[in-house]
């Protein structure tokens, strides 16, 4: 289909027909203020903020000045159209809309969690007026908790209905509706519902004002203090692109980062709240030695603990040493792991999937979601019509482990082999690099680890794994590492360090590097970037990738992925709701 040629503020633009003026403008760096428009949602056109002056060619081909402004979000581009975003007509229209929006909006920015990242603040500052002619009483609307993650402040709501459309079109749950009418118009829960959908947190992100706020972060920090680090969510094999928001090295929230090929604009609540283990009270902050047969032991410095581990490995000899890596290690760590322990006497531990059964994409029900066909036309959907996917595999880097250590090493059979060998007394030393939150080793594995004379565990928190160890090394959480994860569909993405490791904790990269040096192996560089370079050179599945290329939003897919796209098992939201009700997550 031919592209439509038109002009916005004098800039020649080509866009496919059916594109809305607002999208075209935003794509070309012309900012038009808007509230209700969201690229992932259907067009509502009710905020009236994105009004522009549209001049269409008349019969004689000349442009006729518009009598009244049009909303850019619902105006399709047309051949020869001239769009003006800064005329007096538009400026006055914006001022008018902002005045109307603000008359019933409370001036509670100081206590509003959105303050600092609020579109109403920004647009009022940029396009609005400094005074209001409103002298009447403001309307009072209700404030209530919509669900476990979301609180609603009706007074602040500007009725853009992004949240309503989100629940209809993306989540598919239709939990939120608009009730009342006129000035009393307000968002509310659909009768009998609780907004506990696994995607509920996203309405907080898309709410342009402070009407929907996160209960998790309620009153905790002010957003202008937050530092933002781009990273990858580790809680399932989807590998959502996220931002880690920290203040003073404390993680306060995670936000999705737009990546059209992975997670769109969204992330699930499990991932969103999945930073708590970083600051858990059980977090290991120092290295320990707790021998099985003797009473002594206690805390150790890093160098001492590495010497102790090296001694244990030397004593056990190559035949008596097994090493277990977790699917939460980065590719770089796995690469060092492979160089240190090879691929024979190693196995992979991972968190069990959400459920035994594997689900396939069921979202995007077009019966409930009439706008879906249109979205599919615009390429907004992920594969199979799913609006969002949560992978059943609750580990971020199983694919990476399979590529680096080999499919066999990562198969459950290998773990069984380890268990059998350990129970048979053939294993003298086991090194476990776990660093997984909420990991409960299966009973045989726990028994096996307890049966090994020297068990070295690198982990995040005190738990059954650390309890079974003779040497415990405090490891680093994913937010404390640099490196790459390869998600369930084979896409390699980079995560960045958002905070330093607490206490004496070390990243697994440091642990492996120090251990190798202590064992007298040539270890070479320890920087993730250079290790990734080695990985690209040595492992075929990573060939062609570059450290810069896997960063942020660069849409680089690994050749492996391109050759053989994998279908990712995902879950139905209903199943997740049931699981959350059972206390999972």
């Amino acid at each position, binding site marked *: 289909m031919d592209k439509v040629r038109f002009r916005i503020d004098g800039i020649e633009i080509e866009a496919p027909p059916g594109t809305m003026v607002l999208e075209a403008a935003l794509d070309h760096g012309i900012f038009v203020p808007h509230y209700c428009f969201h690229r992932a949602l259907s067009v509502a056109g009710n905020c009236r903020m994105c009004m522009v002056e549209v001049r269409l060619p008349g019969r004689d081909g000349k442009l006729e000045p518009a009598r009244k402004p049009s909303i850019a979000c619902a105006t399709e581009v047309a051949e020869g159209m001239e769009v003006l975003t800064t005329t007096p007509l538009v400026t006055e229209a914006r001022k008018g809309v902002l005045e109307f929006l603000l008359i019933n909006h409370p001036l509670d*920015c*100081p*206590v509003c969690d959105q*303050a600092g990242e609020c579109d109403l603040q920004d647009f009022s500052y940029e396009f609005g007026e400094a005074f209001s002619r409103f002298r009447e009483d403001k309307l009072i609307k209700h404030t209530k908790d919509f669900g476990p993650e979301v609180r609603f402040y009706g007074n602040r709501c500007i009725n853009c209905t992004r949240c309503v459309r989100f629940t209809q079109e993306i989540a598919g749950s239709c939990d939120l509706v608009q009730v009342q009418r006129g000035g009393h118009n307000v968002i509310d829960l659909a009768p009998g519902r609780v907004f506990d959908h696994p995607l509920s947190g996203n309405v907080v992100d898309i709410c342009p004002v402070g009407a929907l706020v996160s209960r998790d972060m*309620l*009153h*905790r920090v*002010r957003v*202008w*203090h937050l530092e933002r680090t781009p990273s990858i969510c580790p809680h399932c094999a989807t590998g959502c692109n996220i931002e880690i928001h920290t203040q003073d090295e404390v993680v306060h929230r995670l936000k999705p980062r737009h990546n059209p090929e992975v997670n769109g604009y969204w992330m699930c609540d499990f991932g969103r709240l999945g930073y708590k283990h970083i600051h858990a009270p059980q977090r290991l902050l120092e290295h320990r030695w707790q021998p099985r047969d003797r009473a002594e032991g206690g805390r150790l410095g890093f160098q001492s603990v590495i010497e102790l581990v090296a001694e244990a490995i030397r004593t056990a000899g190559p035949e008596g040493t097994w090493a277990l890596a977790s699917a939460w290690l980065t590719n770089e760590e796995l690469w060092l792991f492979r160089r240190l322990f090879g691929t024979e006497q190693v196995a992979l531990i991972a968190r069990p999937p959400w459920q035994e059964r594997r689900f396939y994409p069921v979202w995007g029900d077009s019966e409930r979601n009439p706008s879906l066909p249109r979205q599919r036309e615009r390429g907004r959907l992920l594969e199979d019509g799913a609006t969002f996917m949560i992978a059943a595999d609750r580990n971020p880097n199983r694919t990476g482990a399979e590529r680096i250590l080999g499919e066999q090493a990562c198969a459950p059979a290998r773990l069984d082999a380890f268990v059998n060998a350990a129970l048979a007394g053939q294993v003298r030393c086991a090194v476990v690099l776990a660093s997984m939150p909420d990991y409960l080793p299966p009973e045989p594995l726990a028994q096996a680890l307890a049966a090994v004379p020297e068990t070295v565990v690198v982990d995040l928190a005190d738990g059954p794994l650390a309890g079974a160890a003779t040497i415990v090394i405090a490891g680093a959480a994913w937010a404390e590492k640099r490196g790459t994860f390869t998600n369930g569909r084979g896409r390699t993405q980079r995560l960045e360090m958002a905070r330093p490791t607490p206490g004496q904790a070390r990243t697994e990269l440091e642990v492996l590097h120090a251990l190798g040096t202590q064992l007298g192996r040539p270890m070479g560089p320890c920087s993730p970037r250079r290790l990734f370079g080695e990985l690209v050179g040595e492992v075929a599945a990573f060939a062609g990738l570059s450290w810069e290329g896997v960063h942020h939003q660069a849409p680089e897919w690994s050749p492996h992925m391109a050759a053989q796209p994998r279908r990712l098992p995902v879950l139905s939201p209903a199943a997740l709701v049931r699981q959350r009700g059972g206390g999972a997550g």
Partner: protein
Amino acid sequence: MKAPEHPSPAGLVGPAQTSAAAGAAASGAAGEPAAHGAAEGEPDEEPESEPPPGRSWVERLYLREIASGLARTFRHLVLERPFTTDYPDEQLPYNPRARGEHILKVDEQGREKCVACLLCEAACPSKCIRIVVGPSPWPDRERYPVEFEIDMLRCIYCGYCEDACPCDAIELTPKPYSVYDNREAYIYDKEKLKNNYPQDWRERFSGGYGKLTGPPYRGEGGDRSLIR
């Protein structure tokens, strides 16, 4: 020792004069524009850096200047009354807009007016304010400061916090800076800030204090100093 009275700049004199000046300099007669040694009226110096022309050696003894200086200091000593104030017995009136220590204001029921918006913290250039936000125990507001601390040692009394406060909760009173003998005492907690401007200080700045001189303190609207 004899020196030309008005040594000319070297470039403007004849050869004879130049050699004389050079000889004088070489003889080590260069000296001292000041003071005591030459009371007998002996010519004593040939400055290496040439003095401005038109000043005789008598003038360059600066005896008159020394004498007048001594006279002036003596006059100060004997005649003039010191103009210092006898702090702390005697205190100058503070400008009502003087920025002294902070007060955290409370409402009629003794509750903090602060809603813990952290705008003061954001505005503070010296980062001396620390607030821990919590859900408020009262139904009419949502958040309040569980902890509110100002490190008076870091504070530069710029008043930005007062400007930033949306609910008039923090204010800089004219109360001057306190002095303590340990650092911990300088970190004012919420209770201390709430009671940081007690009655006697208010009286003091409203003219009720004994040796206060100058106009009495009056806040704008009459209630600036009141705890509200």
